[in-house]
């Protein structure tokens, strides 16, 4: 069960409506498992992030192939 705190002292003039429980649970899920919600992104966004993750993997593999015997003096 999530703990919830509202902050009247910071809500200032005109209190905003509370965030719905559905939305709060969605953010909880985002923390537990970001990928589970990524279906809500557009196809272009999903592709952008998939390609970024692939490029990180490619950079790590390239590092392994880099000339390790390059001598610095």
């Amino acid at each position, binding site marked *: 069960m999530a*703990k919830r705190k509202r*902050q009247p002292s910071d809500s200032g003039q005109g209190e*905003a409506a509370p965030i719905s429980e559905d939305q709060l649970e969605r953010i909880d899920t*985002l923390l537990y498992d970001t990928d589970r919600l990524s279906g809500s992104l557009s196809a272009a*966004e999903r592709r952008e992030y998939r390609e970024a*993750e692939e490029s990180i993997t490619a*950079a790590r593999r390239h590092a392994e192939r*880099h000339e390790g*015997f390059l001598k*610095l003096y």
Partner: protein
Amino acid sequence: MLSREQWLRPDDPGWLRQPRSERDWDQLIADYGGGHTEPLRRITEVLRKNGARTVYVENRYIDLDYRSEFSAFWSKRFEAPVPHAHRLHFFSRRVEEAQLHNLPKQVRDSYLGYSVLRPIKWGPVGRTVIRPPRDLATAVITTVRDEVSLFGNRLEVEGVPFRQQDTEYLICAHAALWMCHYTAYLRGLVPRRTSAELTQDAPATLSRYRALPSEGLNLLQIQAVFGAAGQPAIFYGIEQLPDVPGVETPPPRSDPRGGVLPRGFWDTRIFSIAGRYLNSGFPVLVAADEHALVLVGWIRRGRDYRFIVCDDQEGPYREVDPFDHYLTPWSALMVPMPPRVLVAAESAETRAGLAIRTAGAAKAGALPQWQALREALAAGRVVLKTRLMSNHDYKAELAGKTRPTDALRELRLARLPRFVWVVEAHDKAALTAGRAPVCAEVLFDPTSEDRTPNPVSISIPRLTTILPPDGGSPLRVEGRPRRWQTLMPPGVLGAA
């Protein structure tokens, strides 16, 4: 270079020099600069920019690093050099001989740093920490605080460690390794290893040539030394830098015959890749042609960025355009990091972007403020900034950043790992207007998986959610959608 007799002077604890003219400074360089004077010349240039007026030469200084090198190498010579050093202390105020046993506060406050000079012709400049020059006041620099005692007077300097190679026992790679190591030591991240221990940490079997006289270190040996010193390095080949959403991947540049130039001539992503670590206080070792140098900061000049470099052959705090440098194209970056930091900076930043945009995905009925943030991030009106912080520094620096009170309290009470990756979303319009720029923040556990790092907290407009360890229940704090001040170093503000 001083003669052996001038170096020894057994009856003197030290002596003052009050350089006033160009000639006085040139004399200092002639006395101590050895066969390659450029590093010491640059040190005096920085000191003069900071208003240096007094040099105190501390005689017969026993320097741990020089002694270690002397024992391991120089003492084996038939004609061995003097085994102790002179430590030069620099002040922006005039210091009188009669004050030395009890320096007044204004003199101590005017301390600009120190440099250990050794009687080694091709490598006189040893451990040196001096303040950055005033013209780098707006730069992000990986400075550390060092304390020294001069005749019982406690002196403090904040600067970047620097030293020179000697061309025989220590070469550029050793000097660069040492600069990264001594920074980590002064930050309390690793125990101190002497320069000779670092040298001996390089496995000789990884090179075809014998270890001494040194013909240099290869990248595998450098990685081995970083590992032995407790800071294994993240490695980036410049020919394949990772993409991060929101960071422009520039188009390739060609030579006059139409051939694509190596990325070291044009790939501007090097600034963001290195910048995230520099923002975090970690220097970055560069393999530049066949030379090693150390990035210790960056600065924005107009629309361009420059690195701040410590190059053992050129001296400290050099402002460098990596695409127009005497060693362009650079080929690799190595970032020594605490071993428990398994998540790289770009992984945290990519994942933070994904989380913020997912939170604002409209088809899931997100709050209007979250949708707006998502759109602004996609359009580049909001940019991400990333810094690794210790749990302690993060919590300490949170105060005064105009976070809502309850969010501040819960974030401070949160059980966080020893380090956290802090990714902030900066509103560029707010920055331009001089207002608090941070509209979202995601914290990551750096001990989690590099490919899918675990967030431990997310703050988006109106909501901060913290995920406790051990399956605890998420803690949510709701508040007004207001922005807060950044935890990034001051030089980051205004950078695209």
